[in-house]
């Protein structure tokens, strides 16, 4: 297997880790913003409690992906930075305000109405995943052209293409779904029921958006469609759909641990399918993994350094999640 494909595989794993971990932290912010009913304060407390110890570590997966991208595929990073100048800046503002507002608000939730920093935290948590989803859509949309290092946009900005906007909405709904499912695992009684209902709502939206996305991709991004329906990818997507149904069913029957496992599987499989459908392109249709790859020495370094680093990282992450998310850690 060529080195650049191994490194791209690490990158895709990083994207999946960021989505299922940090995605849920954005989802926490979404449900903080839309906290409601008689237990709105408890909802916010549970969200803050679940996010507090882990959100910064979860956030580092984004830096991991970015560093991998500019180390192993520098021309692709340069092209994306030029073409997505505006959405990337908006993402950064969202990330900055989300993180800052979360710590500025502090651990105590006072009173039934949201504090100003709580509102900033919530709004930034809604906007950021939408923009990240739109940026991911932009690399598949086909209107971001790169020729001899010159970036050219055909028509409207690629991140505003219908496919990209749908990806943004899908990212938002998925974050909300992940967070609500995880929170059913970290709460009890009526509060858990609150999050179960929210998870069912968000899950329904995810399914509806996925159904809407299919004809859009068929018409607007026929090559992505071809990739998604290929022999290589279709089974992954089918498995993702089955696991998604399992997570919905488990949620319906209040089998929360199963729902959590299935939700992680569903998001991971869909992203894996997207990544495989995108292959061999980093930015469709001009930038391939091969064309954008850095020199062999750098790729070799990354190919070895990442697994070695993970030997230290994964046990540390395991400890973090065991202490705060293990069976004994429930509030």
């Amino acid at each position, binding site marked *: 297997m060529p080195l650049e494909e191994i490194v791209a595989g690490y990158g895709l794993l990083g994207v999946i880790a960021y989505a299922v971990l940090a995605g849920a932290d954005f989802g926490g912010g979404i449900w903080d913003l839309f906290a409601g009913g008689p237990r709105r304060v408890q909802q916010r407390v549970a969200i803050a409690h679940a996010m507090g110890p882990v959100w910064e570590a979860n956030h580092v997966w984004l830096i991991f992906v970015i560093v*991998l991208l500019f180390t192993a595929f520098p021309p692709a*990073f340069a092209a994306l930075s030029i073409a997505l100048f505006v959405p990337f800046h908006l993402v950064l*503002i969202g990330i*900055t305000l989300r993180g800052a507002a979360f710590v500025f608000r502090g651990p105590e939730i006072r009173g039934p109405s949201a504090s100003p920093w709580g509102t900033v935290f919530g709004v930034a948590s809604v906007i950021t995943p939408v923009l990240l989803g739109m940026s991911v859509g932009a690399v598949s949309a086909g209107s971001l052209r790169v020729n001899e*290092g010159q970036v050219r946009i055909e028509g409207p900005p690629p991140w505003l293409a219908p496919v990209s906007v749908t990806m943004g909405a899908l990212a938002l709904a998925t974050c909300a779904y992940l967070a609500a499912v995880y929170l059913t695992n970290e709460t009890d009684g009526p509060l858990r029921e609150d999050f179960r209902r929210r998870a069912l709502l968000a899950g329904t939206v995810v399914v509806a958006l996925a159904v809407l996305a299919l004809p859009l991709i068929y018409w607007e991004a026929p090559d992505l469609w071809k990739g998604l329906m290929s022999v290589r990818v279709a089974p992954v997507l089918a498995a993702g759909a089955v696991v998604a149904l399992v997570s919905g069913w488990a949620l319906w029957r209040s089998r929360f641990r199963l729902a959590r496992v299935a939700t992680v599987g569903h998001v991971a499989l869909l992203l894996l399918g997207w990544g495989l459908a995108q292959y061999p392109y980093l930015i469709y249709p001009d930038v391939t993994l091969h064309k954008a790859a850095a020199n062999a*020495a750098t790729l070799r370094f990354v190919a070895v350094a990442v697994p070695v680093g993970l030997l230290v990282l994964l046990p*540390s992450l395991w400890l973090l999640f065991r202490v705060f998310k293990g069976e004994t850690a429930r509030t």
Partner: protein
Amino acid sequence: MDTLTAARAQMGLSLGFHMVFAAFGIGLPLLMVIAEGLWLRTGRPHYLELARKWGKATGLLFAIGAVSGTALSFELGLLWPVFMKFAGAAVGPAFALEGFAFFIEAIFLGLYLYGWDRLSPRAHWLAGIPVAVSGMLSGAIVVAVNAWMQTPVGFERGPHGELVSVDPLAPFRTPSWVHLAVHSTLSCYTAVGFAVAGVYAAGLLRGRRDDYHRAGLTLAMLLGAAAALLMPLSGDLNGRVVAKHQPAKLAAMEALFETRAGAPLLIGGLPDPATGTVRFGLEIPYGLSLLAAHDPNAVIRGLNDFPSDERPDVVWVHLAFQVMVGAGFLLAALGLWFLWAWWRGRVVESRRLLQALLLGSPLGFVALEAGWVVTELGRQPWTVYGVMRTREAVTPAAEVTASLAVFTLLYLGLAAVLVVLLRRLATGGPSGAKGGSHAA
């Protein structure tokens, strides 16, 4: 404003902002671990209170450091896509190693901040150690990227100027890395030590002469003074690397317009690049030749030796260098004064010392920022010294002036809020036995 100026301003703003939080992320965890270790050893409660307080401050400042650091990793491409396309493969490995260190820091900081009630006291203290160690390591490692930009090595260029053969560890093999890393690490410990000491000096001056304030001042100052006293040595080593590898930068730092043997050391002074003269300066004969080459008659190259489009901005670089060195010597003097008083057990009794420490508490950060201005403006007009000019590296995007305006407002707003929150944290006294369990 043209795109190049706006991009440089945005990069400068983002780095200058991030640097403060990065420094706290390096210095505060060390203080917090030392305080908690002393509590485990002595059982005296004020050490625990200090560890909790410093943990809370670390939680607040680390979060801002993490998000502003994320912004920087994007801004490398958003503002300098040509540079990143050219150099990503050379500097990326250093960023990747820094990323792992930062990841470890974030993981164990989560365990530390939220683990007061979930971990045994010893396990909790042990969780703090990787925070302090990886904080220091991530700073030292990421400086390698800058070192490579100052003194690039370990690559070959192809027919179109692209990198064809790269040593992934080149940033760590540059002649400047070790000295820059030591210098920047010491500067972080100095800045944080003196800044924290100022908080407790203020408390002691207001009559709060309890163990909590005494220990807070002493621990912070022992760190700050030790680092500040090592700084002149580290600065000398750095200066000689600059003299050897970046002579134009040295000429700008010293406002040396003409090449000469037995060059004097210039203290203060306002350079005038139009006439090539310096007003109001104090010259120490042979000083520069002695410092840069350890030979009083050594020839030092002046700015006249370089084409006019390869000279850094002598006014800014020289003045920033004077500020850094001046602040550095004041800090070293304050450190000596403190150590002398501490040795004699008279720190708290000396109002003058406490007042001086209060006044001097921002100087470490002044020196840190000024030193960074020297390093970066002294590298101009190059992004990669001698290889790629800054104006070649900049983005073709049209919206940089707008993004600069938005980020300026964003960072000013965050800074204002942080000042208020940190003041509240600093004047809140000990956090008490219960209050710290959700420090964030």
